[in-house]
């Protein structure tokens, strides 16, 4: 099976995640789209690990690290979103524009 199938699938998922990050209004939806992008990177890593066979085990190890870092990032991101909601009663990213010029 050509490896480019998996690479194009991961690029597609990554671009769908980019659309979600840029276009969604709820901050938790933005975090969901970031998870899509991280998953696309994982698919890429595992596809290359399968392509390299025995020498590709570090690809799977890095995919594990990506999953762990994604879990940490989701925890902190949601804590920040909850704090924002507690202070401003909204998680609308259009209204969180205090630091805009």
């Amino acid at each position: 099976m050509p490896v480019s199938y998996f690479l194009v699938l991961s690029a597609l998922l990554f671009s769908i995640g980019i659309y979600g990050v840029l276009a969604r209004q709820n901050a938790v939806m933005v975090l969901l789209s970031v998870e899509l992008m991280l998953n696309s990177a994982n698919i890429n890593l595992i596809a290359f690990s399968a392509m390299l066979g025995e020498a590709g085990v570090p690809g799977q190890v890095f995919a594990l690290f990506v999953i762990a870092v994604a879990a940490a990032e989701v925890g902190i991101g949601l804590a920040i979103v909850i704090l924002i909601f507690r202070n401003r009663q909204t998680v609308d990213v259009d209204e969180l524009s205090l630091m805009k010029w």
Partner: protein
Amino acid sequence: MSADTWQQVVFWILAVAMTGAALRVVTSRNVIHAALYLVGTLMAAAALYVLLLAEFIAWVQVLVYVGAIVVLMLFGLMLTRAPIGRAQKLDNSQRPLAAVCALAVFVVSSWIMIDAFEDQEIALSDAAGTTTRSVGEVIFSEFVLPFEVVSVLLLAALVGAVVIARRD
């Protein structure tokens, strides 16, 4: 049908399911539905990892991503009073530009990858190589320092999340 044909059939089914679910994640008008479509995407990704002979990663994906991260997202949606049912306005004003940007990223990256890797194959029928044992051996011999650093990172994230989100 040969094994390679079966692999291609399974791959196409998973790819279509994953892409459809991902599109519904970013376009659904109901935020809870979007989180559940993400579960669909992550499960299809786990099945893809099984196809690529990475069963341990597939299981970790189901446990950590679907079992913890999506549940955490649902809690976040509940605690931030996400609109139940269809929301009036769920996308901000940057939708057309976001679509153009996403399309550009997809075209450029897929062109680069097809150009670089167009004739390399994954030999899935050799059924060789990587088992959970070999993943464990590599983690604890070659990558033991990143492993420890990741555990410190998770501790820092845990403490940080508690500190940030507590009431005082």
